[in-house]
């Protein structure tokens, strides 16, 4: 899997998460109104009678059902995207398209992504998975959306540290992916 595919999936995932938050907020409002409906309906009916119009019961139940179905679909989509990202990071075959030659600046070697690519969604999602803030610090390697910095004076060792950092990320993601199977050994 290429990091670009992960980025597309992570972008979709972030959108879906945003959508899920909106659905849950709306669902919460609808559920609250539904709960209060019997108490309010009586007074509402009186008001409508006073102004000479027919009172129509709001379609809150239907809306709630609709939102729940939407939430189910979005959650499924999130689960699929997360699973795809976790598999990508844990497979050991992830291609991280870095420029082969880093640039030394202020005691750090910086590797840019090829074609000036940047991966904000991937880094944000990885931040959530690993539980650490952006930029992601993994040992002496720091991962920004558009570059990777390594605290090292030798270019060769800087490259080794990048490999090691992604290996550590892979193993940590694998651990999260298969927590259940690990737990049975304890």
């Amino acid at each position, binding site marked *: 899997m290429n990091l670009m595919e992960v980025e597309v999936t992570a972008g979709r995932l972030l959108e879906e998460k945003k959508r899920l938050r909106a659905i849950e907020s709306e669902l919460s409002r609808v559920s609250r109104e539904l709960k209060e409906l019997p108490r309010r309906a009586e007074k509402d009916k009186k008001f409508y009678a006073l102004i000479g119009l027919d009172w129509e019961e709001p379609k809150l139940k239907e809306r709630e059902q609709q939102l729940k179905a939407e939430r189910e679909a979005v959650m499924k989509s999130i689960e699929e995207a997360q699973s795809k990202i976790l598999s990508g990071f844990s497979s050991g075959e992830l291609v991280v398209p870095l420029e082969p030659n880093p640039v030394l600046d202020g005691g750090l070697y910086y590797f840019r992504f090829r074609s000036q690519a940047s991966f904000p969604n991937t880094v944000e999602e990885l931040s959530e998975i*690993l*539980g*650490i*803030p952006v930029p992601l*610090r*993994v*040992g002496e390697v720091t991962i920004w959306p558009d570059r990777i910095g390594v605290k090292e004076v030798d270019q060769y060792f800087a490259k080794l540290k990048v490999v*090691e950092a992604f*290996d*550590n*990320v*892979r*193993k*940590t993601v*694998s*651990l*999260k992916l298969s*927590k259940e199977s*690990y*737990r049975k*050994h*304890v």
Partner: protein
Amino acid sequence: MAHRVAVEAPLAPNPVIVASMGHAGVGIGAEAYRWVLIDVGADPKAPTLMGEKQQLEVLRRYGSTILRFGASLRRGETPLIPRALLVDLDPRSANLILQSYPQLFAMKDKHAVYGMGGAARNWAEGRLRFRKEIVERQDIKTRIQAISPEPVRGFVVPFSMGGGTGGSFSSEFMAYVKGSDTLGQATIATFGILPEFGWDPVIYGPAHISIVMNLAHQIRYSDAPILLDNKELRFHAERHKDKLAARSSIVDELPKQIRVGWHDYRDKNLLAAHAIAEFMDSFIRETEWDMSNYRTWLAASKPKFVVPWLIPLVPEGGPSLRTIEQAMKEGNEGILFDLDSEGEIPKGQTDSACVLVKTKGSLTPEEREYFKKLLQERFDIKDRRIIFIKIPAMEKEPASACILLNLKAVGQKLIPMVAEAEDAWESYKDEYQKRELSHEEFKQAVIQVSGHLG
């Protein structure tokens, strides 16, 4: 008389301090000294060397690496004093040792470094209080210098990993030593004991957080991280309880009313002490192997952790290889760490071993072949990855071997604990964050440990 000692005594190598951390660590560290003293023929309650001949013999055998000579109280007698620090938040464990062994721990309160009471089984609280109560208030630097005025070349650190004090104190002690201008070059060997859940008095979730934080510190700072687990220690102690009952222990000397806590651990601690004593023998009885060599052996290993295999578990018999062969036949042997994974031990391409052979005389080809075969049969470790270290046994000392195993399988046994720690963190993080263990620091430890072990 004193002139002969002054002329013939070997040059003293720089010392190694046993810095025991927490309740369990204090008990095991003191027990390890007993084991070493019994090996050399000294009385562990009041080790005094009578006359210059004996003094020279001990000096030649041990130098003054882990023991120092105290001020002579009677003419011609020289007391031996452990270079030991007994560090705990609660002073009771160190007090018991000092009160029961006033002549062994003759530097009295200089051996004991303690704080204001327990760490609530919370790694973060233990670390915070180590910084405030041990480093700042007790001035650990001065306390180390008091116990050993010469520059220190190494530390042996026994502790339990699942409690609040041992796991956190050892972690912060390692960070303190490696970050120190004066001590930073010292070699650190750790003896971390994993708890047996459902048996030891530890709290499941927080114990896993403590284990993960401690493993991260061992990976970063320990040059020879040696792991043992209480489940296997208890299993072997049960099997050999008669033989262990025949050996004396520090527990036997403690006042009966207050030895309850340690009584349950008597036999387990004896086995752990045996492993520590053999490890210390590897660099104090011979000049070929230095403590720092362990660092290079393990520096590039993943995982860098090793586990001890003792043959025999309880020494008996003569100083030849036959004693070890006999122990193997009788089942008086065991690995002090549970390696089995669903009935088998997974093998790693770069598994290696360091064989500490304590027999009389030089290391013979027969001895080498015996241990090579043993390691190949059980672990498939290649010849070229075996290091042999000879520990010369005394005339009447039983032969024994301590094989330090560096196996991939060890990492695989530890990984589930990382998963458990992550689960526990979600419930306990507020408690830890209040005591200055941040969410990010914990997560960084998870990445470091799972990356190292995976």
